[in-house]
């Protein structure tokens, strides 16, 4: 990498420093992984870290990230089930746990009765080569996206979930990524494939492990998730980002929807000092998608949600409700792109972004972006930014609630409308409690 370093500018040097550890990565026994890595490293020669001068990063200043140096995480974990059981989702019968990016089989469990394949990449690569080869590294555009490329350069393991044809699994599959070390960068990776006619619920969950007496440290999670829905498949995808308060979290998720498939996603952003979530959904004929989200941040947090719903073929239906609740001097960004390609007639798309500012220093940038190249479509979008409605506050006060209790309840309710969309009861309760605590509400 020495030649790369010499030609890079200071910011690019940073990328070079991150890649310096790449040489120490052991060669994978899997040829496909080695070739993906090599291609990613090659692409990184030409890619640069984004700055606020890049349109897609205009509102999101990540220069703080470049002031930090990170090492790869130590791979061994001494965590036992008792240490992390409180993070488990009780309904989940299949759980893949990664600690600081490394698969932790002793914390994981897999239920295989349904035919579900769920494991880490090296375990299933040979047995399910076709599904993995078809999608791994194909869905995410790592060739153009520097963080996805960086993740791919370090690709060695991944959570792999393959739902067989025409099987419906009601219990959620929990993909749990636990951060315990500071000063490290990890590259979590997920590949989820729903074969035709199958149905499943996947919870992708990023958390920091609270360690009493230890100050929350700086670390960097750089995640990539690829999700493929074959024809008539349905996935409920819940994504929770609850990283530590000093963490950096950047994630790229690419979803491919087959004919008449249905992708229902809810993304909840609560943690990290600076976070960015890129969601790209490409829809085939008659596919349906919901890409809902809640960002609830305060103090000096920055949370950026960039979504692109691409109606490639006709008769697609997309719905998006994204809400931000911003307190302190926090800064939320929502950029919602809807693309309707030329042939994608009869597309039906509704996007709504609603934002609540809780303090004078809180800041929101919202940018709906509709690009419609077909002429027979129904597309609606809207964005609102506001404070709480006086009539709503009055209604609650007229029922005896104090001013602060009324405001907290309405703030909670604003967020809870998104939480209510999550089809996993215990997770819903956990998040409701989180939101209630953050908004100072009581119920």
């Amino acid at each position, binding site marked *: 990498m020495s030649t790369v370093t010499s030609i890079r500018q200071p910011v690019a040097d940073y990328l070079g420093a991150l890649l310096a550890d790449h040489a120490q990565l052991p060669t994978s026994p899997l040829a496909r992984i080695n070739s993906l890595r090599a291609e990613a490293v090659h692409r990184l020669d030409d890619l640069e870290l984004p700055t606020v001068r890049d349109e897609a990063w205009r509102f999101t200043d990540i220069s703080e990230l470049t002031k930090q140096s990170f090492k790869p995480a130590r791979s061994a974990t001494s965590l036992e089930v008792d240490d992390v059981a409180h993070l488990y989702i009780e309904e989940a019968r299949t759980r893949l746990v990664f600690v600081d990016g490394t698969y932790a089989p002793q914390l994981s469990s897999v239920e295989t009765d349904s035919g579900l394949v769920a494991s880490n990449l090296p375990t299933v690569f040979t047995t399910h080569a076709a599904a993995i080869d078809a999608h791994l590294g194909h869905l995410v555009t790592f060739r153009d996206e520097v963080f996805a490329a960086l993740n791919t350069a370090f690709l060695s393991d991944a959570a792999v979930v393959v739902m067989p044809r025409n099987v419906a699994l009601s219990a959620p599959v929990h993909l749990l990524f636990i951060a315990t070390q500071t000063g490290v960068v990890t590259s979590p990776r997920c590949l989820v494939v729903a074969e035709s006619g199958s149905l499943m619920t996947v919870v992708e969950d990023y958390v920091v492990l609270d360690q009493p007496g230890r100050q929350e440290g700086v670390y960097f999670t750089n995640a990539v998730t690829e999700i493929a829905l074959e024809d008539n498949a349905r996935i409920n995808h819940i994504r929770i980002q609850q990283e530590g308060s000093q963490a950096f979290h950047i994630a790229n998720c690419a979803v491919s929807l087959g004919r008449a498939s249905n992708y229902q996603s809810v993304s909840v952003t609560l943690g990290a000092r600076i976070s960015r979530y890129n969601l790209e959904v490409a829809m085939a004929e008659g596919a349906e998608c919901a890409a809902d989200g809640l960002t609830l941040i305060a103090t000096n947090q920055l949370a950026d949600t960039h979504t692109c719903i691409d109606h490639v073929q006709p008769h697609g239906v997309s719905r998006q409700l994204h809400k931000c609740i911003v307190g302190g001097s926090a800064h939320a960004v929502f950029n919602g792109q809807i693309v309707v390609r030329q042939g994608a007639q009869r597309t039906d798309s509704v996007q709504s972004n609603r934002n609540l500012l809780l303090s004078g220093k809180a800041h929101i940038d919202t940018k709906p972006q509709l690009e419609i190249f077909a002429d027979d479509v129904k597309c609606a979008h809207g964005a609102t930014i506001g404070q709480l*409605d006086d009539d709503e506050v009055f209604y609650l006060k007229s029922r005896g609630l104090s001013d602060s209790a009324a405001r907290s309840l309405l703030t909670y*309710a604003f967020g809870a409308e998104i939480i209510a969309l999550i089809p996993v009861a215990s997770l819903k309760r956990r998040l409701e409690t989180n939101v209630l605590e953050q908004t100072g509400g009581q119920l």
Partner: protein
Amino acid sequence: MIYPDSNNILEVRGLRATVNGIEIIQGLDLTVKSGEVHAIMGPNGSGKSTFAKVLAGHTAYEVTGGSVLFEGNNLFELAPEERARAGIFLAFQYPIEIPGVANSQFLRLSYNTVQAQRGREELDPLEFDDHVRDKMKLLEMSPDFLDRSVNEGFSGGEKKRNEILQMALLEPRLAVLDETDSGLDIDALRVVSQGVNQLANQNSAMVLVTHYQRLLNYIVPDFVHVMEAGRIIKTGGKDLALELEARGYDWVSAEFQASQTHALQEQV
């Protein structure tokens, strides 16, 4: 019902109030005693709903003159939530929706807040569930309403039932029902009215703000007041409502104008 020697619950004297600098209430007088049911009628824009909101303490309405005593105390010294805890209840013409909060949670929070302020026992979710289900029977409401978000997706009639359910839970001394009949079909009107009638008692009073006489077929008032231009210009018994239904408001207005002119001439 009129009871001899009952206490004044509400005494309004020369009340004036503005919205956005426009005077809507222009010298309103009204006395409501314990046990009584009063109806306030009048054409659109006469100030009926504004009066209801002023009593509940909506901040968009500024009181510019006069006085209101609630059980002998100055109402204007109380914040809206203190009025609610002291026993004033406003059933809203347009109840707000709170997506994300279950009706049961909201009802219990409101109930317990008011109970605590009144020095009474709060109920845990299980106890409250029993309590609220009893009250819901009164309004022929399905228990499903407890699990749904507050007023979200409720029909007009369902929202009004939910308002009266809150009234049943909070046991106010003075209930002000703002156009509770509007948007109700005849069955819903009957159910809501029956509920209200069962809540009426000797220790509390009710003020019904309504545009139409039909509500008063079900909830029989002791007094009917006609409002115009922010004042009460005529007061009568329950028969006045029937007369208004048959003849409209113009004759009341004309009669009031004539009496004012007469009073002026007397003074001269």
